[in-house]
């Protein structure tokens, strides 16, 4: 028995080769992001956006004369896994900063790791208010994503204009789903008190079979549905909803937040997309409001070798952009200094100037909203007209 | 000592044991014989509580023990061996017998003192009398078939039984092994004043040591009495001899 034990111990010891030390000392940024499963529909392009930014800035000589190095890890859209990866990035890969996470379960969990290790953490995608709520806020967490309050209220403004009274909601049973639905319902009731919430369904995150939920919901005869089913999950949900004629029954009084109207979602569904619903997106290659945006889309299109580049790349891009600008401003990679530099920092992003507020470390990131239509120019549905909803009035 | 009354057991309509009754007097050596499928093993399993009987009673020393589970029954002085050798194959010979001592003497719930030397003397003494002492350290599963059977006997004896139920104690043994084992059983039974009830297919063995024989055929008792009486009886009851 002992010989075997010894053998395994030796084997293990042999495997424990220490990681090689880097001579050039790039600035290391760790990015835990879901790279598998349905959330990868968003996570992968967001990672690509960050990579493109890193390539671009390194081509221009990096930051403070040092190159940026991005280390990505698959967080599997799972809080436990994200925490694990974040800690390994810090302990094993010695990253200087963390940019990443996608779901609202991952975000707050990684925020705790950042706080303990005193490492700046920029969340480019998680929207839950809990991430920057006063009791959770700490000097090292920042968010360049929108928030559930912004998103829920923006959607409520749209739904309030519809001729409907009976509204139902469909959201995942976790931080993001709960928070955005709450924000939506509260705001809608405030601006249009005649509305009645007739049903609320809470499938678990990652649900594959929505039929029971859809059937239960349609039995309550809603006139409009607010959904925050996101990512690849929306594909499954809307396919199943469309099959039972839900969208027709609602006369397309359906709004899908959680980026149901991104070009990549529309593209991956093709003819199956429920054209006519309302939705939102962080970005759309066809938006093209400013020169900066058009240039960004062209570069991204080349980088991804995709004629219709993903809308999610922008979040990874902006997250890295803020970090790089803050390092420049702080003239240091010291986390405390960078954290201070991020407060009140304004950055010219491809979607316009964004500022991180000192109060809650939150950028004024809004989103594009619109009704989806088929456009002869593209083989899939787009939002038209598409409007950038400025979040400033919804932020408090 | 042991009384069996009207035991019946059926499986899915097939009657394996039907209204079987017999007695085992104290300090006697009794045998149950019958062809394969006569219900001998089922009967044993009913007596020792492995199976639940449909009707009937088992009385041990005047106490009704019908349906008493095996682990309680063997505290009442019943030891048993099995037809298919039934030992703790990956434990050593010593550990096998020692485990029986530990369990029987109620020390099994002690979870904190080392077990190694517990009942060491008793175990070695018993192994000695089984002529297994020199193999105490061997893994039981590696013993020869005959030695395994003897070890199983040891497991039963460690329970310090009053009555020993042996299911085909010589099954699968060579002629010489059989003879040795029978002598051993006979000697041990005498030394310890045991009551012995066994099933056997080897008629020579049965008639050489049994004082009382019960013949079972298709789940029924067709003869019951002294060897001589059964031998005489056997002919006109028409029990099939081919298998014995």
């Amino acid at each position, binding site marked *: 028995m002992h010989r075997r034990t010894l053998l395994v111990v030796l084997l293990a010891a042999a495997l424990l080769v220490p990681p090689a030390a880097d001579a050039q000392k790039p600035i290391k940024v760790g990015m835990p992001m879901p790279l598998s499963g349905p959330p990868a529909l968003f996570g992968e392009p967001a990672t690509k956006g960050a990579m493109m930014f890193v390539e671009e800035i390194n081509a221009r000589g990096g930051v403070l004369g040092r190159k940026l190095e991005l280390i990505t890890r*698959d967080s599997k859209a799972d809080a436990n896994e994200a925490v694990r990866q974040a800690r390994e990035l810090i*302990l094993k890969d010695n990253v200087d900063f963390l940019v990443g996470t996608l779901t609202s379960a991952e975000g707050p969990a990684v925020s705790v790791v950042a706080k303990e290790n005193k490492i700046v953490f920029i969340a480019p995608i998680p929207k839950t208010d809990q991430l920057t709520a006063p009791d959770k806020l700490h000097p090292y967490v920042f968010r360049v994503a929108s928030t559930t309050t912004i998103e829920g209220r923006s959607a409520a403004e749209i739904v309030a204009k519809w001729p409907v009274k009976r509204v139902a909601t469909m959201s995942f049973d976790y931080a993001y789903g709960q928070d955005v639905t709450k924000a939506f319902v509260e705001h809608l009731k405030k601006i249009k008190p005649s509305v009645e919430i007739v049903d609320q369904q809470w499938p678990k995150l990652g649900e594959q079979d929505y039929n029971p939920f859809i059937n239960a919901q349609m039995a309550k005869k809603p006139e409009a549905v607010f959904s925050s089913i996101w990512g690849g999950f929306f594909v499954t949900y809307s396919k199943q909803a469309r099959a039972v004629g839900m969208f027709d029954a609602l006369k397309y009084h359906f709004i899908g937040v959680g980026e149901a109207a991104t070009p990549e979602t529309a593209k991956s569904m093709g003819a199956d997309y429920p054209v006519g619903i309302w939705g939102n997106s962080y970005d759309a290659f066809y938006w093209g409001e400013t020169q900066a945006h058009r240039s960004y889309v062209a570069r991204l299109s080349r980088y991804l070798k995709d004629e219709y580049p993903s809308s999610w790349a922008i979040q990874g891009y902006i997250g890295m952009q803020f970090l790089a600008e803050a390092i420049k401003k702080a003239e240091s990679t010291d986390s405390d200094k960078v954290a201070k530099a991020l407060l009140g920092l304004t950055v010219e992003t491809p979607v316009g100037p964004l500022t991180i507020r000192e109060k809650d470390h939150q950028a004024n990131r809004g989103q594009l909203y619109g009704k989806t239509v088929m456009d002869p120019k593209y083989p899939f549905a787009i939002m038209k007209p598409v409007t950038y909803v400025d979040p400033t009035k919804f932020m408090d | 000592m042991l009384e069996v009354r009207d035991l019946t057991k059926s499986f899915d309509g097939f009657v394996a044991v039907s209204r079987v009754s017999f007695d085992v007097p104290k300090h006697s050596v009794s045998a149950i014989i019958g062809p394969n499928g006569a219900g001998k093993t089922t009967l044993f399993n009913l007596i020792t509580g492995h199976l639940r009987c449909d009707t009937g009673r088992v009385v041990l020393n005047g106490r009704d023990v019908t349906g008493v589970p095996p682990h309680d029954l063997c505290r009442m002085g019943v030891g048993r061996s099995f037809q298919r050798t039934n030992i703790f194959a990956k*434990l050593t010979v010593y550990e096998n017998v020692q485990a029986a001592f530990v369990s029987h003497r109620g020390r099994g719930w002690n979870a904190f003192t080392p077990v190694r030397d517990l009942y060491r003397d008793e175990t070695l003494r018993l192994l000695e009398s089984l002529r297994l002492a020199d193999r105490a350290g061997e893994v039981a599963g590696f013993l020869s078939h005959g030695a395994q059977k003897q070890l199983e006997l040891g497991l039963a004896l460690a329970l310090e039984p009053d009555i020993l139920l042996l299911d085909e104690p010589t099954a699968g043994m060579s002629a010489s092994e059989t003879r040795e084992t029978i002598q051993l059983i006979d000697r041990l039974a005498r030394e310890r004043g045991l009551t012995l009830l066994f099933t056997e297919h080897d008629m020579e063995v049965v008639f050489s040591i049994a004082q009382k024989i019960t013949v079972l055929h298709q789940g029924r008792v067709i003869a019951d009495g002294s060897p001589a009486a059964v031998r005489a009886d056997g002919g006109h009851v028409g029990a099939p001899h081919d298998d014995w």
Partner: protein
Amino acid sequence: MRRVPWAPLVVVAALLVPAVGSRFYTFLANDVIIWALFATSLNLLVGYTGLVSFGHAAYFGIGAYTTGILMKKLGVPFLLAFPAAGVLAGAFALLFGLFCVRLTRIYFAMLTLAFAQIVWAICFKWNEVTGGEQGMPEVPYPDLAWMGALPLVRDLRTSDHFYLVTVVLVALCLWILHRVVRSPFGRMLTTIRENAERAEFIGVHVRRYELAAFVLAGAFAGLAGGLFGIFNRGVFPDFAYWTKSSEVLIMTLLGGMGTFYGPSVGALALILLNQQIVSYTEYWPFVLGTILVVLLFGFPGGLGGALELLGRRLWRPRRA
């Protein structure tokens, strides 16, 4: 023959890790040590009693949530919250075990799985208490300020202090478990594994012993969970998911379930291997699966079975 005192040596070596290794090695070592306890607790069932549980993660999860909730939400000191993990996990093991031990083999495994999934579903959905899907991040470290007053360890970080506490606690737990498996009680469990029918007939109340083993294993898994929740800086419903149960089962089998330290070795080997593999490829499950297949065919019965097979080869000719 003088025996090398392996166990104390390993404990001493483990205690030295923070002093000589980087933070990452301490992190890894902490991980390994807690998993070792978890796997050893499972081995009490699988290796010693012969009960294959598919739901051992349930008790790990219960322990983690117990300690986590007590320490984070109720501010209970670690000194109480840690044993509470074992007690509550043990209590649940008793409750579930009452039903499980009535079944055998595959049904036993399935029922343990069902109970574990129930625990998981509750952790996953009971948002108010367990935090639901997003778990319960930020479980505080125990108050280890007193270690700052001790010589030698004064200058270490909190995480290192916690590591040292873990080493001592796990060593203590393993020592207790070691006593248990070497005790008469442990011997009775082995007889059940070898041959439950025969065990019954040397007077072992099989179900009751199995239940006791189940509770004990559950309790120690709970303790491992309690430590892990703190180490992991958060408790998540995954802790009780069936894939965790299979992970720990693989560790146990890989290291060899016949021996007491096998599962710990399995935990060490698997975690280190994982660390190395993931830096080369993202396809860790593929590699793990391949290793398992190779082990199964190359060494039927895992690492532990290799020696056993050797023994059996030696024995066969004699029987023939």
